[in-house]
């Protein structure tokens, strides 16, 4: 959808919402309609994240939010559009580690360095899992097996955060393991379920149906602390594997976003994360609320970028 057509559409929607839902108290936000862009196609991870947040955000911040999918070049196009937009609080981009990987792996028109991280919203915990009827009961079993034989570990995509975690796990434990990559989570999941792979790594949301049906067992959380949703599952660190990552889900805008916009978002995100109705939704999806304020988030993303760049450089994936 073109921006112009969209704004028209969104304008009509706002008018409708205002007449139907009763006007909210207006804040000093410079825009009535805020577009949230994602590179993922409708139904994809970031798309669902945004679309589920939008109705609650509308309510909490009293603005009209709309989602736009700018697909193409694994985020390259979305980054170019957002970095060139006016810094008036009207357009933000849903960030995930993907935008850093794309920036580093290809030479896009605009990279993550051309954007200004706004705030972080969630961490999407990465978990290591195996088939429910497999012999592995803990991460230690997996590592022991890989020491004695040869491990078969799966990650959804070739150059991704998940791959990086497994490679780091391999280095940290010094075992022999084949790290197999796929074209997406579903493909890999099948190979975990049919025992082609010992373990797979992925986000909670991807494996929820299998988990609910008791077909999978989660062995470890690859984060700093255990998950509220699964308090029994230990972290990798607790099991002696010193690897932890934080897959972030936040927002970024063009450079020089005005301070009052930043302030409105910092307040808005904290409020929406505390909102009970929204909390129910995101807890079910296995997301960890992880608000990071603007100034810290800039540093967080820069550090994440640096770390990823080092990894890709040291493995020879990029020059």
């Amino acid at each position: 959808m073109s921006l112009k057509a969209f704004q028209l559409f969104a304008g009509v929607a706002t008018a409708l919402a205002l007449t139907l839902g009763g006007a909210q108290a207006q804040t000093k936000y410079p825009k009535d309609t805020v577009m949230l862009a994602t590179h993922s196609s409708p139904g994809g991870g970031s798309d669902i994240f945004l679309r589920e947040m939008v109705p609650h955000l509308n309510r909490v911040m009293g603005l009209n939010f709309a989602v736009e999918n700018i697909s193409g070049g694994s985020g390259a196009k979305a980054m170019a559009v957002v970095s060139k937009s006016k810094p008036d609080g009207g357009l933000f981009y849903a960030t995930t580690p993907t935008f850093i990987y794309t920036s580093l792996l290809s030479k896009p028109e605009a990279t993550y360095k051309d954007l200004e991280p706004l705030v972080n919203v969630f961490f999407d915990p990465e978990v290591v899992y195996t088939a429910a009827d497999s012999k592995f009961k803990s991460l230690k079993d997996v590592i022991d097996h890989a020491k004695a034989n040869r491990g078969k570990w799966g990650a959804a995509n070739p150059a991704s955060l998940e791959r990086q975690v497994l490679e780091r796990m391999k280095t940290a434990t010094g075992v022999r393991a084949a790290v197999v990559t796929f074209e997406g989570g579903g493909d890999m999941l099948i190979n975990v379920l049919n025992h082609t792979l010992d373990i797979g790594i992925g986000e909670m949301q991807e494996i929820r149906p299998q988990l609910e049906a008791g077909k999978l067992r989660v062995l470890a959380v690859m984060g700093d602390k255990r998950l509220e949703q699964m308090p029994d599952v230990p972290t990798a660190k607790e099991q002696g594997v010193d690897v932890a990552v934080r897959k972030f889900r936040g927002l970024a805008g063009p450079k020089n976003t005005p301070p009052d916009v930043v302030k409105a978002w910092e307040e808005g995100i904290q409020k929406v994360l505390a909102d009970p109705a929204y909390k129910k939704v995101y807890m079910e999806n296995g997301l960890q609320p992880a608000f990071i304020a603007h100034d810290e988030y800039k540093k967080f993303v820069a550090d994440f970028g640096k770390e990823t760049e080092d990894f890709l450089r040291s493995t020879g994936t990029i020059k």
Partner: protein
Amino acid sequence: MIDLSGMFNALVASPMIIPAAFAGIAWGILGGALPGISPSITMALLLPFTYGADPTAAVVLLASTYLGAEYGGSIPAILIRTPGTNSAAATVIDGYAMKEQGKAGEALGISLYSTLLGSVFGVALLITLTQPLAAVALAFQPTSYVGLGVLGLSVIASLSGESLIKGMMAGLIGLMIATIGTDPVTGNNRFTFDDPELLSGIPPILVMVGIYAVAELFEQASQPGWRQTNTADAAIKMPDALMRARLRVSQIIGALIGFIEGLTPGGGGTIAAFLSYNEAKRWSKKPEEFGHGSPEGIAAPESANGSVSATALIPMMGLGIPGSNSAAVLLGGFLIHGMTPGPMLFTKHYDVVMGLYAGKVISLFALLVVAYLILRPCIWLVNRPKHYLMAFIFALVLSGVYAIHNSLFHVGIALAFGVIGYAMKYYRIPTLPMVLGVVLGFMVESNYRRALVLSDGDHMTFVEDPIAACLLIVAFGFILVSLVRHFRDSMKSDQKVKSA
């Protein structure tokens, strides 16, 4: 296992299913018929509008759109040599040949009839056996996909007509095109010239629209008397009893291959369409007609498309694993309404599942009705004066190809493939092997390497997987038979040349 009363109750509970099925089919045909607008994009465009809708009607709307789009792709494939979707490219070959022979109405009838039969088969399996069949998807390992891909490529040996060498060249060029983009194992960029637009590779639809539609526009620019469809044949004509009997084998082949591809993630409709075209040719009583307007050449891929549009829902609903982009969008449709497809869907949201089944049945009728209404104006459109028709095809291609990623670069690639297609015709190099290479190349390479990573470099892994072993044996058997036949024929023709 059929719960007819459950389906009926779901229908009574949300009667919106019926208009949703019709609307989905109509919207799907529109999106599918436009080159570049894939079934998944067509469905995704509806997603935002399903937020407020009744969950059952929402998933029915999306599932019907899938069927409509898979069917819709065949209309421009037959009428203007422009595949509307990837999976319709196999239909172009014989569909357009029939149109050129003045049999457009008949070709459209065969395509509609075959899509319907394929989807009846698929829907029947979906309704009765979703849960047990979902387990079949688990039998497929990376090795099995290699077998499937090699079987598909093995057809190049028999397809290439007059010159096996040229066919192999075209197939290799197709495989080369498929290597453009991110490496499936390491994530390195290959042949991308550091252009982010090439990172995800060249979408197959660009190749197909280029070498079929654009090349034909180049060609027709020097043909003043473009053959027009016979006005006597200006209506859709359903196949008669004789034709139905002839189509039976190819339709069964299409429906079965569509079923297997629907079940296995990563397969998808395009591969099903081409595999079933190939197999239909192998098992046909008149294989020589393929490529020159064989009705079976339309029936096989179209029944595969119909079958896939239903069976792709089996792993999506039964396992929560989408087998194709379109199924992924449908999965999104479930998620939006707070339902998670997977083994628990059937216990937690039984009514929605039943509603979806009912909707799938209704969408079959909807397809018949909407297609009948829509085909007459379509045929009228292609009977306009030639210069206007060509101008509009060109405008349609330029608009549609852009839509894939909102990229003018893609429009340029499609034009470039038009030039390549034109040159291939001049040098008498067959185009179909190239399309096969493009469609199958990535699947074969990524799974071949993945399988070797798993086996630590041991090629025996392909023999140890029974599915892969069977498929590979069949493939090599076919290659051997084709080679023997080829050399026998070329010896004969050499003798002819000498005696002449």
